[in-house]
């Protein structure tokens, strides 16, 4: 016990872990179905799109489509991308307020914002 785990270690680890778990639970409870997505390009807002309506959004840079975002059943999903890694396409769809999809090479950020009111949540499911 002594060589592996001291009293200080136990206290430090327990406190830090408790704080982290609390933060995770807290943010998990705060997660609500979002109302719209904010698409930013190069750090600037490109477009805001409601999650309510199913549609396909082409994100263009200098006239060329670099990413295609699909909005369906209250969720936003990166359908296509011109980036080499395609990590944004592989990411799960986002729908909860605060969640985001990032395409680093293209510098595209899709972020869910707002909170859907009333029965929209049931429509989304």
């Amino acid at each position: 016990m002594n060589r592996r785990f001291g009293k200080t270690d136990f206290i430090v680890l327990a406190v830090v872990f408790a704080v982290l778990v609390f933060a995770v639970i807290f943010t998990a409870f705060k997660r609500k179905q979002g109302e719209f997505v904010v698409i930013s390009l190069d750090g600037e807002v490109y477009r805001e799109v409601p999650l309510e309506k199913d549609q396909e959004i082409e994100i263009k840079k200098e006239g060329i489509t670099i990413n295609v975002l699909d909005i369906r059943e209250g969720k936003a999903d990166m359908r296509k991308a011109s980036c080499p890694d395609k990590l944004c396409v592989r990411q799960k769809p986002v729908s909860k307020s605060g969640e985001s999809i990032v395409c680093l090479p293209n510098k595209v950020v899709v972020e869910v914002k707002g909170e859907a009111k009333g029965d929209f949540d049931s429509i989304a499911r």
Partner: protein
Amino acid sequence: MKRNVAYLGMYLALALICSYVESLIPFYFGIPGVKLGLTNIVVVLLLYTLGAKEAFLVSVVRIILAGFLFGNPFSILYSLSGGALSFLAMYVLKRTEKLKVVTVSVAGGVMHNTGQLIMAALVVENYHILYYIPVLLTAGFITGFFIGILSQEIILRIGNRI
């Protein structure tokens, strides 16, 4: 030092294997390219056996090589900031001599993900992705904890022979 060169090579190879395994594990928390931090085991072992300079050297060389082999320029950038912050935290904590390997490793894991997240926020010029802080730091804690236990056993058993 001559003897150390062979050891450093071995550690570097081990670190690259860890990087490869890591690149196969899907770990998406809204930020592409962020890694779990498995390679920290090599840094922890080096820090406790050969020394801080060696740990830092292997860490940097590993990041650059792994970036070219299994990653992209962004993963190098992430790994560098994660690796630097993690190394600094572990180095400072180890020097206080008040904490055991497990705790030092946990600090490394948590700071590794903090560094990656800060770099990601800078790259995309969007600070909202800091929303993932709790999840990422908890992941770093858990990874660091298991790496710490494993390193501790290795150091206690064969540490004096390395």
